[in-house]
């Protein structure tokens, strides 16, 4: 317990923290169109995010998200198509429900639900994708660093 608090205090000092590391699961349709659009418009974005394209946002397993946190990644975004717009017959509806539940579960092990970003149909234009990402970084910077206690919990939780 003592460990956890001290980490939190240290982390808050301005300028010492490096940028939060972010993984974005982007569906190959709406989400990637937004990301591609941002690239084509040469919108300058923070460096510390990596995009993993998936065929459909429904593909994203809770396990992968938890695993990401266990590796020290501080924010995970899942971007998909708007409700009614999924090419895979509303698979995104299930994904949204699943992710909302996961947010609640993450909170129980001390991972702020703000660390899991979901955007369904709000990121398909270049400025929307850029805005979502920048806002996400902003939000993550406002949170204390992901501490060891939470990470340990996640390592226990992932599938073998």
């Amino acid at each position, binding site marked *: 317990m003592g460990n956890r608090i001290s980490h939190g205090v240290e982390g808050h000092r301005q300028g010492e923290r490096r940028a939060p*590391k972010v*993984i974005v699961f982007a569906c*190959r349709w709406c989400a*990637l*169109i937004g*990301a*591609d659009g*941002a*690239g*084509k418009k*040469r*919108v*300058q*974005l923070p*460096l*510390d995010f*990596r*995009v*993993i394209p*998936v*065929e*459909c946002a*429904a*593909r*994203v*397993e*809770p*396990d*992968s998200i938890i*695993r*990401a946190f266990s*590796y*020290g*990644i501080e924010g995970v975004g899942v971007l998909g198509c708007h409700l009614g717009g999924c*090419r*895979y*017959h*509303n*698979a995104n509806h*299930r*994904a949204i429900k*699943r992710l909302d539940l996961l947010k609640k579960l993450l909170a129980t092990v001390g991972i702020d639900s703000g660390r899991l970003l979901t955007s369904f149909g709000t990121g398909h234009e270049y400025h929307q994708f850029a805005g979502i990402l920048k806002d996400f970084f902003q939000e993550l910077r406002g949170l204390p660093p992901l501490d060891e206690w939470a990470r340990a919990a996640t390592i226990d939780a992932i*599938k073998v």
Partner: protein
Amino acid sequence: MASKRKAICILCRCYGEISDVIDLDSLKDMLTDHPSVSSVEILDCLCLEAVEGLSEKIRQSGTGKALIAACSPIARGDSILRGLEQRGLNPADLELVDIREGCAWIHKDYSKGATGKAWDLINMGLASLVRREGSEDATTLVRHEVMVVGAGPAGLAAAASLGQLGIKVHLVERSKRPGGMLNLISRVAPDETSPGEKLAPYLKEVEENAGITYYPLARIASAEGTVGNFAIRLQVDGTEHMIHAGAVIIATGAQALLPQGLYRYKELEGVLSAIELERHLKAGPVKARRIVFIQCVAARDQARPYCAAICCPVSLKNAMGLRKGNPEAEVYILHRDIICPGSTLEQYYRRTMAEGIRFIRFEEQNPPVIEGTDHVQAVRVYDAATGIMRELDADMVVLSTPLSARRDTHGLARMLGLTRDHLGFFEVQPLMHPVETTVPGIFICGSARWPVLAGRAITQGEAAAMKAFCLVSGQEIAALGLSQFRGEKFAIARVDREACTGCGNCVHICPYEACTLEPVNGASKSRVDPMHCTGCGTCVAVCPNGSIQLPEQDAQVIGEMLMQSFS
């Protein structure tokens, strides 16, 4: 299984667009030491390289596996991959990493950071490439036969078209005669042709074409199989027929709703449903002198929140029919909007106005009231456009009800795995694929899909026939090729039979009902129908132990990519 095969890395300078920001030379140095890399090449502009040369380079590198770091798939990346695949390279051996739109262009002032990010992205790509497997394709021989369910205008058009194209057609009809709803009507809206005339060319083809078999009085007892080979058991007048079809076209139509309990229907004489009026008009000139049509009966309301599209043109057509039989007749059409979109229908509307048919608008909250004791005598209506309460003498009132979804096709829907929307009409793919259902190989046309006039039903029947023709005219259907919006599906889910616990999560969640549980040595195991599976990966996300995977991107790949993401 992690592959020991190394990959060639091909990095694109993109004429400086990438190389001005990302230090490709240092990437090359680092990659050369990478355990999964056989060799590294930097090219000025990949998409302008002769694809032939590129594919040769990849083949000659030894393993045929290649990681290409260039622009985004939406730019040129995808066409580079397509070109390589067309030259015989295995798509499972190719990985595209976007370091232009995804890196150089969005971090142009941070060369060091961008180079580090590119290194991470390439590592992630290699992690994916190393484990990547191609999904096992499944092919099925295609029957050059199509079953058309329903011999109304849509079904007849579909059957006739396919027959003319040389495809064997099984035209299945529940009643004795073909024609569907057109058998019940006097004239076809809006061209006022007789139903016989409208259907004549299609009926002729069905009759004369030896390849089209017509089964009247048929019931579908069971339906099994999948695209390419549906096995359908028909009961026709006591005899059983087994039909094998490569595709199925649903043209079961809709049913006319009866205005039960509305506007004193069945209570007063002279208050008819629209279908009853058709019967009268077929018999000859109708004697009534003052006819009032009421539109939107049991439609566009709480219980049926839809516009059935056909009722306005049909009422116009019937109004004209009444006038033709009795030029003295006074006809009123009470409506909430006149739905005559387009050129032909709008012209027809103008014609009816010129003919002297009168239109009175009423509002949903203020419907007309029918007056009379044994027989209808008058209709009282608040004319919304003038604000006057009108009392119209009437000796006939016609209630225009919508077409509603047939209730007797539930069984058929279940057998074929079709879903229905909340109104009961069959679900279809949106916008660009209006005659396709969510089940591959099953198409839909006519009012079973959504209420339409005969002309449009015929067009949809022809559209469905065209789609079915494309499907069944080949020799084989490959499961991977059965994608509406991609050249090839991304993947087909694969089950590790040993690990599968038979929990059924995948069965429950699959949007295409591609997973089923089957008994294997006393246990239940999941089985994926490759024809239905679309590779979305929803099942993978709900599997408790990772026994169902997409070979192109399994869970371990994602795990590896996460590990490599920030070096």
